């Protein structure tokens, strides 16, 4: 008998505190698989954000730091600048990365910091009880947009991949979805590539995972996946935005 699918070694045995059907767990597993596959476990440091995944350090089998809200990219920068030999990734929610942490993610991306970001976009603040995020869909009801997100009041949802890929420096940017096995397979590849690029020293790599928050969306896990595919995917296209190209020589002409 040969096991063809099981919990990866880099994932801790410890069960998670996530709500039933929350896709955070899927993203965790994909990361662990990538780290196992590339053999990076013993030199990896993960950065947990403030958000539902704040306790991520309990769920992986390698070193972790817990960062203040939104600042995981700065924390990761600190580690990488001090210890370039380590493999570092941040794991951040959309409130964390796209709201309070906007400056840090853009600057880390633009400096080409050599770490990986796994961005969990579930269009809401999960941890604090379902407030509006910058990624919340137009019309979506949340606890601080009780009448639905009004774009003439607070604008349209921010698409982080599009935003970051308007920068020249980042090496790899891709958006994936965790909504079905087909998409999960693509997500797995993207995450693997992001870590591989990092381990090859190729600069900043970023994977956005479209995710669910059944609890705060107020639907079942299955309905949440449907809602993701129906409402989020048309606005947040699942695709590669940037893949590694050798940087042009210092001061050279602009490739864009």
């Amino acid at each position, binding site marked *: 008998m040969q096991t063809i699918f099981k919990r990866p070694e880099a994932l801790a045995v410890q069960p998670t505190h996530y709500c039933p059907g929350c896709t955070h767990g899927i993203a965790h597993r994909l990361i662990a698989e990538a780290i196992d596959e590339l053999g990076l*476990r*013993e*030199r*990896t*440091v993960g*950065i947990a954000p403030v958000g539902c995944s*704040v*306790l991520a*350090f309990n769920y*992986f*089998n*390698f*070193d*972790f*730091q*817990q*960062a*203040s809200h939104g*600042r995981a990219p*700065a*924390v*990761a*920068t*600190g*580690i990488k*600048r*001090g*210890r370039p030999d*380590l493999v570092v990734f941040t794991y951040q929610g959309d409130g964390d990365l796209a709201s309070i942490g906007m*400056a*840090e993610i853009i*600057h880390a991306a633009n400096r080409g910091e050599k770490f990986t970001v796994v961005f969990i976009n579930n269009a809401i603040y999960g941890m604090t009880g379902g407030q509006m995020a910058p990624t919340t869909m137009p019309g979506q009801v949340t606890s601080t947009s009780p009448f639905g997100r009004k774009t003439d009041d607070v604008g349209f949802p921010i698409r982080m991949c599009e935003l970051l890929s308007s920068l020249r420096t980042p090496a790899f940017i891709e958006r994936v979805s965790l909504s079905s096995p087909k998409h999960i397979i693509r997500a797995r590849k993207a995450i693997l590539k992001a870590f591989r690029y990092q381990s090859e020293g190729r600069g900043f790599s970023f994977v956005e995972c479209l995710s669910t928050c059944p609890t705060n969306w107020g639907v079942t896990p299955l309905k949440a996946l449907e809602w993701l595919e129906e409402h989020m995917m048309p606005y947040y296209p699942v695709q590669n935005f940037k893949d590694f190209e050798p940087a042009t020589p210092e001061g050279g002409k602009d490739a864009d």
Partner: protein
Amino acid sequence: MAKVLMKGNEAIAESGIRAGGLCYFCYPITPQSEVAEYLSRRMPEVGGAFLQGESEVAVSNMLYGAAGAGVRCWTTSSSPGISLMMEALSYIAAAELPCVIVNIVRAGPGLGGILPSQGDYRQAVKGGGHGDYRCLVYAPSSVQEAVDLMPLAFDRADRYRNPVLIIGDGMIGQMMEPVEFREQEFPSLPEKNWATDGCKGRKPNVVNSLYLNPVEEEQLNRKLGEKYARMERDEVMFEEFNTGKPYRALFVAYGTTARICKTAIKKLAEEGIDVALLRPITLFPFPSERLNELAEPAEFLLSVEMSMGQMLEDIRLATCCRKPVHFYGRQGGLVPSPEEVADEVKRLLGSAKGDR
């Protein structure tokens, strides 16, 4: 080593490097940008890391990351920049990470001005971030002392696993004095076996300040409390000046103002008025015990500050209000002159009773 004439900021920069602070993050702000400028040239020479971050918020979190990975790291900034580090500072203290933060204080509050000030005493000493935490706070009063305190600061940061602040004022940063980079010896430090530097051969380490279980969080608070008590017991540093003979009044002043008091003491001595000085070198822990002893023979104490009297409470606490504690201060970037200070002493000696 021969003495070299160096600007405070550059001397601090060089001393930081020699103390092994090979990972430096910064954001420019007057009057300390020379530290960054010096290190941007010097770090590549010594194979260290120099990075200008996008903001002080980011910089303070870079410190968290690097310190958490076991790297000796530090930053320098000035008042408004330091305020932006308060959340991270609380995190750093809570996660028990060692790092050094130099604040070349300028006039505040708000944007204020860029001239020297001591207006961040309370922020540094009483805690500007949320929660129960303390930083060890050193206040050099010369460029040489700033140079000497850097290795000590790094050592203590590592030893206590705690952030250490160095509080200078714009003057310390801007003036040039001869300095010597002396080798300092420290007892060996415990291994950083808590650092997140790859879990090869051990269980994963976690750098964290989240404790959802209140019992664990209380334990952390008490553990930290014990650490701060240990600092209060072991880390007090101060200088006495002119305390060898009887004196009528005692100055309490740190940093630049302490030097001004020394000149005032000399001037007053010429007029036959004996005054002494206690200069705290550590602001936390405050040299309360010694201050209480030195207060004994004095008719009154005079705190000389470039602030509105932020040190007064600590002086009163140290002396249990047994002696009148007076205050002479200038603010906004104005520096008290020795003459002003001496005059104030004479005025007070002439007058009856001061504040309690």
